[in-house]
């Protein structure tokens, strides 16, 4: 990023993220090493124990995590490639947070109502569509999904109080 310092300050650099993720991978590997050891990573009278294979897998996770970590540290000062800028990250949150809220909604009241609400609101707020259009798209996706899964293919999806009302 040669043009300005400001955008560099407001962005997360690739190499920073690389080091963080490598550390997480190493930690995860270490956790599996520990667990495999607890299960027994050697042999008993029946042959290899339950932790035998995962042990070597997790060793490789640790090694590769450590190598990427060190490779990252060596470039920490010099590498200026951007992982994500603040603006981009905001865009990601624009879809990520509503999606998480949607999944929570599915957990609480079944899938059909939250789907319609999620699609409708997203179109209205992010896409700046008229209320009528947003509602129409949201509702039709839900109705199509309902017909497809509950009525035709008889595959049950999560349902809540509303679906009970209409007899499902």
């Amino acid at each position: 990023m040669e043009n300005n310092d400001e955008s560099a300050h407001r962005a997360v650099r690739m190499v920073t993220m690389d080091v963080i993720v490598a550390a997480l991978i190493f930690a995860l590997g270490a956790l599996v090493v520990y667990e495999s050891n607890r299960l027994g990573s050697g042999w008993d009278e029946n042959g290899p124990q339950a932790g035998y294979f995962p042990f070597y897998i997790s060793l490789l996770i640790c090694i590769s995590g450590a190598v990427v970590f060190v490779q990252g540290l060596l470039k920490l000062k010099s590498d200026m490639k951007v992982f994500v800028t603040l603006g981009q990250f905001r865009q990601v949150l624009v879809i990520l947070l509503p999606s998480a809220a949607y999944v929570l909604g599915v957990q609480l009241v079944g899938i059909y109502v939250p789907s319609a609400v999620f699609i409708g609101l997203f179109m209205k707020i992010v896409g700046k569509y008229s209320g009528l259009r947003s509602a129409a798209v949201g509702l039709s996706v839900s109705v199509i999904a309902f017909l497809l899964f509950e009525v035709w293919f008889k595959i049950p999806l999560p349902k809540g109080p509303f679906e009970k009302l209409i007899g499902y």
Partner: protein
Amino acid sequence: MEELNALFHGFSIALTPFNLGLMFVGIILGVIIGVLPGLGGANGVAILLPLTFTMPPTSAIIMLSCIYWGALFGGAITSILFNIPGEPWSVATTFDGYPMAQQGRAGEALTGAFTSSFVGALVAVLIFTFLAPLIANFALQFGPPEFFSVYLLTFCSFVGTGKGNPFKIIASMMLGFAMAAVGIDIVTGQLRLTFGFTELLSGFNFLVAVIGLFGIGEILLSMEEGLSFSGHGAKINPRIVLETWARLPRYWATSIRSCIIGCWMGIIPGGATPASFMSYGVARQMSREGNKFGTGQLEGVVAPETAAHAAGTSALLPMITLGIPGSPTAAVLLGGLMIWGLQPGPLLFVEQKDFVWGLIASMYLGNIAGLIVVLTMVPFFAAILRVPFSIIAPVIVVICAIGAYTVKNNMLDVWMIVVFGIVGYAFKKLDYPLAPMVLALVLGDAAESSFRQAMLISQGNLTVFWSNWLVGSLTTLALALLFWPLVTALRDRLRAPAPAAR
């Protein structure tokens, strides 16, 4: 010609009106999946898998494999008209395809792409027809050490043919293996890596991982780029098609080279994406008009498309004959086979003849159907891409959620796709390849049990992997591929100081 008889029997199975109908439905769904951002071959098939549970297995695999062909075709549409590769294997198609569209030659480019896809697939299916029974027959004699060495070869070739940091490839792969180990150990019955969470008893489901990593992850990436599609119109009429067809035979040499690259890269799990790049590169070097590549050469569309489709098709060869998928989508199809109670591998050719030959016959028919569908329906598919992302994004999230739930009727899986989505986003940006992770997750249990059985046979002695010429050469080849990046790095380092010294 036992194969030909079996093949004609297969055609009689595949050519029922019901199966033919499914073929067209599959192709159309597949192209739509291929065109939409966030839905690709792998997660598209994963999401649609539950819908096929009520069908007979042969019909189900016909529809699912047609979705796969459709997705392979669909990637070309977005690359050429919108300069946005719908699938990673169509990135190389944008190099010459998009300039052609800019010059108003979109119809020509699309016809060239579809036709060469078709040719690539056809060659791969022909090879499949005659090679698959041979390999299956050969593999019937495999024991645990042989199977493990084939798994080893599969995974080492990711390291050997991958472009990125080999340690990232290994990390991604091993995380897949670790996830596969979660749950009840099939041999000892012990709980592994569940850390007291009862939800983890049955382990991670790879379909959920695929939907999250590729589906949600891709949505997050597309959102970040703030996609606004601006594409070129496409007019395809019979005249353009015929004119292009008249020009295509000129590129026969490129076509043959691309078929060879594609089939080879598909059978070893390099996959369609590197095959398309490699084929483009080779065509540029070998062609007389190589220096004009990138400015809208038809040959530059033919090369990657032929290779991508040949690789995509031949990726099913190791999946059917050995139970080892050559690509994430083939892995999802493999998961489907297991859900229907079919154990992929050499015995499939003995025990499920109808199924195998029905599938092979449907590969021929499905690609013909695909060519017809894409040539006639391009404007419709291009219109889908013009639907703004603020509508597509939430709809795809909903579809992914439904797909994840239907895998096991488990709400936790719906949460998992959000987690996998974030992982997929970060890994994609940091250049950790996702395909090895998915394949390791799918094959983890099988690879582990073959390793443990091999170790039991030899009482822990690793030389069992060199105990006969077959397993020995497979293992040696695998290790050679594994250390290939090291060799090239050394060579580059040795070569680098030379110009500096001058």
